[in-house]
């Protein structure tokens, strides 16, 4: 199956700092998504980003499908950004079910 690697595995930021999280995948994937899992375990979809760039407030994501990676940018980080960020993509053609990376654990400290 397709291998997915997220980096860094752990990240500690001072509040207000910027960061870039990376997701590499071993083969072509369709319909890559980014999720945030908050410290209480709730998974929230951030972006559906098969290619190109999207922005939502302080977050933006870029997927370069031809080079098999996706980036998640967090600017002016806040303590509420803490949690684990996962990239995920469909196991088969279509959009379901999802295969998740191991995640990047982000801690933003005041």
């Amino acid at each position, binding site marked *: 199956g397709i291998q997915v690697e997220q980096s860094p595995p752990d990240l500690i930021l001072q509040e207000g700092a910027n960061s870039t999280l990376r997701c590499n995948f071993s083969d072509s994937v369709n319909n890559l998504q980014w999720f945030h899992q908050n410290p209480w375990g709730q998974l929230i979809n951030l972006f559906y980003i098969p290619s190109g760039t999207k922005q939502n407030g302080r977050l933006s994501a870029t997927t370069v499908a031809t080079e098999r990676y996706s980036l998640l940018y967090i600017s002016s980080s806040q303590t509420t950004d803490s949690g684990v960020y996962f990239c995920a993509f469909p196991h088969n053609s*279509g959009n*379901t079910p*999802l295969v998740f990376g191991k995640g990047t654990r982000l801690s933003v400290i005041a």
Partner: protein
Amino acid sequence: EAGVVQSPRYKIIEKKQPVAFWCNPISGHNTLYWYRQNLGQGPELLIRYENEEAVDDSQLPKDRFSAERLKGVDSTLKIQPAELGDSAVYLCASSPTGGLGYTFGSGTRLTVV
């Protein structure tokens, strides 16, 4: 809208005991998923339903796990008997057919002692 509702939120049981988890998906979502998330890992699919039909259960340990989705709405995931290695968070998610618009529930954290 209530989102995907799961219960219970936490469950502690002794090994060899049975346990059941319940999920109510978002109204109108035909596809329902059960995922298991081990500590420090991403979620992994256990079973996927399209309406009331299980269309992908290859990762479900069928000797002890069972699931049902009667009437294509609510779903129940059962483990009998539970083993220590079953300790994990069990997540339910739903989506419209096609998979866009994934929504996860808050999960059930199972501890087997």
